[in-house]
């Protein structure tokens, strides 16, 4: 049985809507979800404190015995290189870090330099730059994945064209590796089941195996990559109770990710 993950559920302040969103994801069979807080530095000066909503919802995903795992994720929409400050203290509260670059220079920097886990491909507008092989290969070598979100395509017809156009041009450059598909769902009706998303991946130009990986294995490698960001030189994992202990084999940095 594959482990399916949806790493982009938009955060809303409405707690009951968040709860029904997570319950729907569990019903559809996702074993891990990540609640995404989008941060646009131009909108506010100060970073709003993330309310890590105390998720004690014990919804069981289909066919699993452990409750659904809920992670926290931050997406920084960058239009300038000063917007993303690496190793900032505020980023430590989040399990996953993502950036959405809006210019070619920022895309290059994000692929090669920044310590992020996910690079979001914008789906609401025509991409102002083309994907070049060099930064894309650099990102793939480092273990950074590219994310395409599909709920904009479900909502609106013009966005559907942009989503498919941007996704297809991404697949040409990265040859289908290191891609994840996720919903950017705000309502429970915008999520789709994992097999349906695998099929959508075929529309975006992925092969059968790559499309299934985009929902399962690649997502899992992103979560592990995110954990290695918190490790010191890849083997020491600091627990919150302030005792240092060496990690079991599963938590060590994997060679193909670094």
């Amino acid at each position, binding site marked *: 049985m594959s482990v399916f993950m949806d790493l982009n559920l938009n955060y809303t302040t409405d707690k009951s809507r968040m709860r*029904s969103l997570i319950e*729907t994801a569990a*019903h*559809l069979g996702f074993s891990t979800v990540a609640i995404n807080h989008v941060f646009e530095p131009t909108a506010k000066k100060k970073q709003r404190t993330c309310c890590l909503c105390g998720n004690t919802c014990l919804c*069981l995903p*289909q*066919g699993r015995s452990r409750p659904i795992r809920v992670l926290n994720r931050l997406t920084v929409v960058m239009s300038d290189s000063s917007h993303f400050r690496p190793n900032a203290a505020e980023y430590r509260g989040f399990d996953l870090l993502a950036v959405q670059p809006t210019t070619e220079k920022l895309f290059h920097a994000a692929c090669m330099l920044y310590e992020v886990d996910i690079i979001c491909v914008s789906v609401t507008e025509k991409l102002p730059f083309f994907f070049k092989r060099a930064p894309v290969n650099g990102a793939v070598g480092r273990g950074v994945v590219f994310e395409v979100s*599909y709920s904009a*395509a*479900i909502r609106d*017809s013009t966005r*559907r064209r942009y989503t498919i156009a941007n996704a297809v041009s991404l697949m040409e450059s990265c040859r289908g590796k290191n891609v994840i598909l996720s919903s950017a769902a705000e309502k*429970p*009706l915008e*999520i*789709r*089941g994992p*097999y*349906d*998303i695998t*099929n*959508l991946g*075929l*529309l975006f130009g992925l092969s059968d195996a790559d499309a299934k990986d985009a929902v399962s294995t690649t997502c899992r490698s992103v979560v592990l990559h995110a954990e290695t960001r918190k490790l010191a030189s890849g083997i020491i994992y600091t627990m919150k109770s302030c005792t240092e202990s060496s990690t079991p084999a599963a938590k060590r940095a994997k060679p193909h990710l670094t």
Partner: protein
Amino acid sequence: MCPSCAVCLNCACPKLFLTAPFLVGRYLLCEVIVPDRRHLLLLDDRAVAASVREAVARVHGDYGAALCSSRFSGYRSINWAPTVLSLSSVKYLNAHTGIVFLRFPKRCYKLLWSALPFITSIEARGQSIACFLNCLHVGGTIRTCQKFLIRYNTQQLHRMLPKCKNEEEKQQVKKSILKCTLTKGNRKGLDFPSDDDED
């Protein structure tokens, strides 16, 4: 009943007919998910078929619409299928649980399946029900889909067991779990098409 020709399996069914390539298809077992379960009862097979066709036409245009309606003209309606039109792609619909079987031709089922996530609502009885389709299983015949559906329903009943509010409900659920079987011939248990084993 052989699903590909309206002839009882006990009689001699011409092999040619059974293996005819234009008769193979893929059956998609989908679940309609709505926020309010009462809206499920408003669904009927024509509404679902219409919304599937409309979504395919919206996403894949005229090519998709043409693929969706291509059928072997000799396909006969089978007595137990609750659909009136034999050419419809909806082969079974259970309004109580929201399970629907869709049939697509084998060569293009992936293309037509890729249009299903774009369904956001179904028009039934004058109302527009906001919902989406979740595909659970793809099978080559209706029988494999039935087998999967029985296992799935049994799992759902197991998941419902901890949520029962009193002893009587628990007993009912346990009885339903034990009744779920697909026996050859008379098909007791999952009494197709009227399911009385869930919820």
